[in-house]
């Protein structure tokens, strides 16, 4: 069902080196519009590096990479206008109120005052967080903050939203709600590119790409991968791939 949709991310032979260390080794993949694309891997597998390159935060060593139709070498500002990003580390302003954070990021992405107001209300109502609208972020729990960070990332209705381990340190109920938000965003046509190392979350993705030591070891739908390795959960798929790697070494 994804075949008819255009590609919004096209990666060909992406290589990223830090000195002798190869963080991303010849990655090639496409992500289609509206897709929920999971980027899985152990800590240090190179997920975050690849994501930062796609967001225009770092330059690749080599490779042809297009995001939202723009080239990551020369058109990073155009890419940035079209993407949303949620960092691994909470990075909204803790000393500003919820509303002020929405206002600031809405303004930065060029939304009008009216749009900012409407969308802020929309998200706060949806998250049932209207009562903390005027609280500074420092004072509210992490799970709520993560949901707010996601809302800020999609506030300007980007083509693609990048989520770097968005549910780290969050309780299971909030994680569940978080994935509901992700589905909603995807339904609205926003492509979701998400990294995680929770394998149960991988089951929620349309397609996953498993990275081991900077390389792509497997890429398909979760059910196809489970069939291929004849297991019942993504967790087992991942362990197989990671174990294969360690016995090779």
């Amino acid at each position, binding site marked *: 069902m994804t075949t008819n949709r255009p590609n919004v991310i096209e990666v060909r032979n992406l290589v990223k080196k830090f000195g002798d260390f190869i963080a991303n080794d010849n990655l090639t993949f496409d992500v289609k519009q509206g897709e929920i694309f999971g980027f899985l891997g152990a800590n240090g597998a190179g997920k975050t590096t690849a994501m930062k390159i796609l967001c225009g935060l770092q330059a690749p060593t080599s490779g042809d990479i297009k995001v939202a139709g723009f080239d990551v070498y020369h058109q990073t500002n155009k890419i940035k206008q079209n993407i949303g990003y949620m*960092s691994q580390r909470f990075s909204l302003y803790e000393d500003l109120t919820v509303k002020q954070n929405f206002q600031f990021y809405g303004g*930065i992405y060029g939304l009008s005052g009216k749009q900012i107001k409407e969308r802020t209300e929309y998200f706060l109502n949806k998250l049932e967080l209207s009562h903390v609208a005027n609280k500074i972020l420092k004072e509210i729990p992490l799970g709520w903050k993560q949901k707010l960070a996601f809302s800020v990332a999609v506030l300007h209705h980007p083509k693609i939203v990048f989520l770097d381990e968005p549910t780290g340190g969050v309780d299971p109920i909030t994680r569940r709600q978080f994935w509901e938000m992700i589905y909603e965003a995807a339904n609205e046509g926003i492509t979701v590119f998400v990294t995680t190392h929770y394998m149960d979350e991988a089951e929620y993705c349309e397609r996953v790409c498993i990275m081991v030591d900077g390389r792509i070891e497997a890429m398909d739908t979760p059910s196809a991968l489970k069939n291929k390795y004849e297991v019942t959960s993504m967790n087992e798929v991942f362990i197989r791939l990671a174990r294969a790697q360690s016995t090779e070494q």
Partner: protein
Amino acid sequence: MRTILYILQKEFRQIFREKAMLIIIFIIPMVQLTILSFTATFEIKNTNIAIIDHDHSHESRNLIRKFEGSSFFTMSAFYDSYEQGAEALKKGKVHQLLIIQPNFEKDLKRDGKAKVMVITDAINGSAAAIMSAYAHSILMDFNKQLLVEDFPQLNVNDPIQITVSNWYNPQLNYTTYMVPGILVLLVTIIGMFLSGMNVVKEKELGTIEQINVTPIKKYQFVIGKLLPFWIIAMFEFSFGLVLARFIFGVPMLGSIALQLGTVSVYLIVVLGFGLFVSTITDTMQQAMFISWFFMVIFILMSGLFTPVESMPDWAQTVNTLNPISYFIQINRMIMLKGSVFSDFAQQFYSLVIYAVLMLTLSVWRYRKVA
């Protein structure tokens, strides 16, 4: 433009959210200005002088009375021996010794000349020079009096009459001299630290990462980061001028518009410098140390405390890179001499070049990467 306004709004909200910062920004500099201006002085008063009078004669007492009569000296002790005096000087109880030889009066009457000795604690060279000069002038005075009283037939008159008049600061008031300089220091410190800490703070907290994925342009970011501190520092400078005028009575001969015009350029240099430090460091600690390193050198070489003209040639060359030095000169010239633009055009253009350089460097160094 709208983007810059949103950044400004956010910066001001963050600044005014923190009560401690408000105190640091607004109260501390004013307290410093008040305290430093009253205390940072090179005037030497109350020099403790000890007398060792081996003569105990009419003339020796006359001489001592001359010293007593000067507001510059405080008679702190009378000793009988040179050793006692030397000990007191060593312990720092007295700053100067006046030793009157035995037979002082007799020699004067008989030979027409006698000897006294002045010993000065010269640990602080410039203070010692001043103390010696004072003692010397009292002795000269005494000399002249002797000539007039004892040898009226000589009709001593100085062949050259010297009239000294001190322009621009007729009362030789140190506060007048120091306030314009200290005012420059305060806005420099506030400006450099606020801008220096700001961007690096966002790096430490990780909030810069979220900024870096937005389509904010470098120049928008730099303007948005500098303008709030520029406004605060301008406000502070103006407030400082008011204090200078009404609390310290510093004359303001020059145009205030000219003064604000020059400080506005100077602040771009300072804030640009701070921002540049911020872009090359990763933690607030590093930024703090680097800022201090330059700040201490710039301040000590600025001519605030010691005249730049008396520094060695290499130091004067280094000083061409010292923005504080330029602006202290300009500020003193405008306030105390009523100078007009053409009087300090060269220094001003140096500041303009400096401002352009610092801004270019910080825009260039600020990378929207993570």
